[in-house]
Structure formats: C-alpha cells, structure tokens
C-alpha cells in the first residue's frame, strides 16, 4: 500500500514536471516566433491583487502592463517584445517569497516590479539577489531595505539587485522641517515621539533639519504608547510657548495627543509623518484637529505636469481599475527595467547576452530618464534620486494635499 502510493506520487510529480517543462518550452518557442523575429522579455509584477490592498495592487499591475504595451508599440527596444507576468502576494511575505522563487525559475524574466509592502520586500530581496535578478519597487518606504537595518548610524546597502522609485521614510522628517520653517514660518517646536524605531527616527531627522534651518526646539518628550492620558505633556507643551508640535509616531496616540494639547489651551498644529496620515487620526483628534499636518511619501500623480501623458494613455487603455497612489511609480519602475534591457541589448549587438540578468542589474544602476513622476535615476543605495513628498492638512474632517515637493537634501 505504502509502495503503491509512493509510485502514484512519483508519477504525479513526473507528470507535473513534464507539463511544466512543456509550458516553458512552448513559451520559449512563442517568444522566438514573435512577429518581429525577436525575443520576449518577461517583466514580473508582484503585488497584492486580492484582499484589502488589492486596489493599490491592481493599479500597480495595470500601470506595469501599460508600460510594456507602450514599449512594444514604439518598438522601444529593437527585436525585443515585453510582456508582464503578474502574481498575487496577498500582502503576505510568504506568498511574496514563493512568487519570487517562481520568477527566478522562469529564465525569460529579466526584472520584477513590486512589491507594495516593505515586509514582503524583505522576504524577496535575498531570493532575487542570489539570482542577480533586478527588482524595482514602486511603493516600499522602509529605509532599511536599501540602507541596512542600521541606517540611522551607518548606511550599508544589503542587496545590489534591489531598487525603488518610491521615496523612503527617512526624508519625511527633514521635508516637514523645511515646510514648517520656510512655508509656515514656525520657529519654536516641541518634539514628541513614542520611542519606537519609526517614531524616534522621524523625530530625530526632523529635529536635526529644523535646528539646521535656524529653528528652536523648546521642549522634547517621549510618550508611552500604551496610555491615553497625555495631559501632563500637553501642559508642558502649552507652557513651553511652542508654535508647533512635531510628533514622531502613529495615529492611535497622535489623535488623542493632538486633542489634549488643544484642550490644554495650546492652539497650535500637530505635525507628523505618514504614520498619522490616516482617516482614523481625524476621528481621534476630533474637531480641534483641524489644521494638523502630515507628510507622506510620493505625490498625487494628478498634480505632476510630467504625468499628463500617462493619465491619458491609462484612460485610453481602458483598464477596469484606477491607477491609484502608486500607478505613476509603477510605470516608472517598469520603464526603468525596459531602459536597462535596452542598454544591455544595444551593448551586445542587438541580442540578449547569456548573462542577461546580471547585465540588466548592472545597467539599472545607471538608468536615467524622464518618467511619469519626474526624472528617474538611482543613488548608490538603489533609492530614487527624485524624492517626492506631499504635505497634507486636516480640513473639514478630511486630509487635503497642501503641497507636493521634492526633497533636495
């Protein structure tokens, strides 16, 4: 009995393997048989295509698809046809890693766009790096992905195959400092954080930049995220004479904190990072939260002059789902891979070399073009050199974009 089932499993596995090989070879054949006699390059797309975040994920998939279609139509790379292979990671690191392995196994895949979540990216980075397969994320903002876990003290790039067109959290603090000092004319700040990695890091980078600009830090405090009573801190804020409060942390504490600061009699705005950029912040802060500010990475594509063509093309292509927050960045990520492939093909007399993946990864470092979100190129860590951020303000119970800008260091 045991023997029989073993045979059955072996047979099934063999059949499966044969089917898969058959599929693979058929794909290969299909590629070389393409009308223009060239090869097919597959660009993998990994994003959450189902579940809570699927709206964002489908926007990423459609925008990547649009980029390949336009490259094919323009015959952007002579002799090469692009197509995408989109896989669902359900925002789960384990699914993301499984997808990464699948992409690596398909020899036609020369680059991957995605994922949406930083945690998913962490699980994929090593798989891609070992295979020297380039990955460009349109949405990951965790600085550690490109600058190492110790990024606040010493930056060290962990994986050479990882790039991103998204801005990192690390520039949010300085960007907020510049906005408050230059645009809002705030001079005296009270800095509060929750002692967590994200919050304390944000508060530290903010403080450094605000002081450099000439602003004064009139007080600091750290709160305990498990409590709800911040009245003692609120009293300190009021008596410090600060004209703005910067909070490094997340909305569950920021909301009550904002409310209690205003209740204590200090009618000054509370400013935070993308951790407080949430509809729940407005709910928790109550009516007195009007005028509070948050920064978030990226910019609404509608506001960028460089994105007009993309928006029009996206509309013409007739996708069911909207491009959402990361559409423009996904298009640029895909286009960066296309540019890198073009460079590799041109350097090799119009053909793909045998070590195409490695060459594409190398070429990615020097890619530079004018994309949907502005100029696209990467620094020595694989981060986008174009660091776009947006300041949002609470107005009539909603977050409204106040100013999009580029952080220039």
């Amino acid at each position, binding site marked *: 009995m045991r023997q029989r089932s073993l045979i059955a499993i072996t047979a099934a596995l063999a059949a499966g393997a044969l089917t898969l090989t058959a599929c693979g070879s058929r794909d290969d054949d299909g590629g070389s048989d393409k009308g223009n006699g060239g090869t097919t390059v597959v660009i993998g797309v990994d994003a959450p295509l189902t579940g809570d975040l699927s709206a964002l994920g489908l926007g990423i998939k459609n925008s990547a698809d649009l980029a390949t279609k336009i490259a094919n139509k323009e015959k952007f790379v002579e002799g090469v046809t692009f197509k995408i292979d989109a896989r669902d990671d359900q925002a789960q690191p384990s699914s993301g890693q499984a997808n990464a392995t699948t992409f690596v196994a398909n020899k036609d895949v020369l680059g991957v766009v995605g994922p949406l979540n930083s945690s998913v990216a962490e699980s994929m980075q090593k798989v891609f790096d070992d295979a020297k397969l380039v990955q460009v994320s349109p949405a990951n903002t965790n600085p550690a992905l490109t600058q190492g876990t110790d990024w606040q003290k010493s930056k060290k790039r962990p994986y050479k195959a990882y790039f991103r067109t998204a801005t990192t959290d690390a520039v949010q603090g300085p960007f907020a400092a510049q906005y408050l000092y230059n645009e809002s004319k705030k001079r005296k700040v009270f800095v509060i954080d929750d002692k967590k990695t994200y919050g304390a890091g944000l508060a530290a980078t903010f403080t450094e930049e605000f002081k450099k600009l000439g602003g004064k830090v009139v007080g600091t405090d750290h709160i305990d995220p498990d409590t709800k*009573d911040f009245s*003692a*801190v609120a*009293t300190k804020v009021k008596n410090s004479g600060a004209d703005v409060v910067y909070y490094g942390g997340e909305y569950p504490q920021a909301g009550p904190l904002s409310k209690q600061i205003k209740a204590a009699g200090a009618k000054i705005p509370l400013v935070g990072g993308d951790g407080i950029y949430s509809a729940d912040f407005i*709910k928790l802060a*109550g009516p007195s939260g009007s005028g509070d500010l948050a920064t978030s990475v990226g910019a609404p594509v509608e506001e960028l002059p460089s994105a007009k063509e993309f928006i029009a093309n996206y509309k013409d292509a007739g996708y069911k789902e909207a491009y959402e927050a990361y559409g423009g960045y996904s298009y640029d990520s895909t286009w960066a891979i296309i540019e890198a492939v073009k460079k590799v093909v041109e350097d090799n007399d119009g053909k793909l070399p045998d070590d195409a993946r490695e060459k594409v990864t190398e070429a990615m470092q020097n890619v530079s073009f004018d994309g949907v979100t502005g100029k696209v190129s990467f620094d020595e860590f694989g981060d986008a050199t174009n660091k776009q951020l947006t300041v949002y303000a609470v107005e009539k119970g909603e977050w409204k974009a106040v100013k999009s800008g580029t952080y220039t260091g």
Partner: protein
Amino acid sequence: MNELPQQLVNGLLLGSMYGLVAIGYTMVYGIIQLINFAHGEIFMVGGFGALTVYLYVLPDGTSMWVALPLMLLAGILVSVLVAVGAERFAYRPLRGAPRLAPLITAIGLSLALQQAVWAWYPGGEDSLNFPQIEGGPFEIGSVTIQTGDIFLFVVAPLSMAVLAWFVMRTRTGRGMQATAQDPDTAKLMGINTDRIIVIAFALGAVFAAVGAVAYGLKYGQVQFRMGFILGLKAFTAAVLGGIGNVYGAMLGGLVLGVAEALSTAYIADIPGMAQFGSQSWANVWAFVLLILVLLFRPQGLLGERVADRA
C-alpha cells in the same frame, strides 16, 4: 509661567479615575481575597453600556444634560450585570478552590470580555467616539479645566462620600465589614455572606461604571482595550493605598495620578535626569513610589491589617 497648579489638577483628575476603579479591586479583595483582574473589563463594559444608550436608545441630538444621567444609569446597569454574572458563574463555583484557580479565571474572563466587545459590538474593533459636553474650557487663574473633567471633579468625591456612608452606617455595610474581618464568624452571626459578596462585586461595578463614563467624557472615546492598562493602574493604586481599605483605594489613586503628572513635568528639570523625565517614564516613577511606600509600610498607606491570610 508656573505650571504646578495645572499639573496638580492633571494628576488629581487622572488619580480620581484610578481611585474610582480601585474601589472595586479593594472591596472584592477585602472580602474574599480575590484579585479580580476582570475588573478593568467591568469598567470597560460600563463605558460601552453608556455609549449604547446614547447611540441607539436616545434620539439624535439629545442634550447631554438629559442624556448624561441616563447614560450613567445604563453604564452602571451593564457593569453591575456583568460583575454579578461573573461572580455567580465564574467565581462562586470556585469559592473553595485553591487561590490560584479564581485568579486565572479572572484573567481568562478579562480576555473573554475584551474579545466579546471586539467581536460583537458594532464598530467595536476600533475606538468609538464618546459624546462630549458642550462648552469651552474653564480658566481658573492659571488652571484650565475641561468641561468633561468637571463631571469627574464632582462625581469622584461624591461617590466616595456615598460609599463611606454606606459602609459605615448601613446594615449591609456593617455586614460587609464583618465578613471582611472573619467570614466564618460573620456567618455564625447570621450574615448572609454570599449576598454580601455579590453586593461587594456590584458596588465595585457601580464605581467602575462611573469611572468609565468619566473616562469617555475626558478622552472622548471608548475602546475595547481601555480597561486593561487602567485596570492595572487602579490595582496598583489599591495596593498603594492599602488593599482592602476603601479610603485607601481613593487616596492611592490620587497619589499615583499626581506622581505620574509631576514626574512627567519635573523630573527632566533635575540636572542629569533629563532622559528619565519624559511621559514614557511616568509609570516607572509611579512604581518606584509604590516600592518605596511598601518598603516602609508593607500594608499600604491606609492598610490597617497585615495581610494575615494572604
């Protein structure tokens, strides 16, 4: 600007809330030596009971002056029902069991109540907004008092006075004292100790519900987890004041609240102590105080008896 008066007020307000919840811990402990860790959740359901009346029973836009007494009644009703139910079905079957059994039961009940509200109260997985009393803050000298805090300022001393009268002057109150002193002899003297125990749970729940309404008015929201940390603090307050003593619970609460507020405000100004002064260290200082008090007075500030049966 001198912020001492304001920080004292902040601390007293916070402490009054601790005290209201601490009464429940101390009364139950005083009578059956059970640390009722589910008491924080009895506090929490009181807040939700009050909110339910406002959201689903009263017509929209009811004035808070009409709504508040009804909400208070509903909160008390829900808390008392849950507390008495817990006593009847979770603790009474374990009356003769080893000390640890009811303690673990209490922890389990605490988790179960939290999850029940999380799962079944509409929107319970998030913070829910609690209605607020209209009217701006009041300025008295350099002290600002919120409208919602006035409720706490009035109700906390009033509750305390009522409780003192009840325990000292009524027949049932004296029965409670007798049961606390010696349950067996009390029984021989004709006191229905089972009834006394239920009353202790119910009274604790009443004050917890009052505290929960005060919490909602003060912070503008209720949440399924709100009883956990506050319950721990209230339990600490009860120990600080001398567990088993109802005045001690209130005093312990006030001392704890003031200690937290003052340590947040002033520790950082002591030279060399800047990094120990933030609000995240307030709990540490509150517990340092607790340890110091217990070192010199192991029975707590107002505890009379050494815990001979503990």
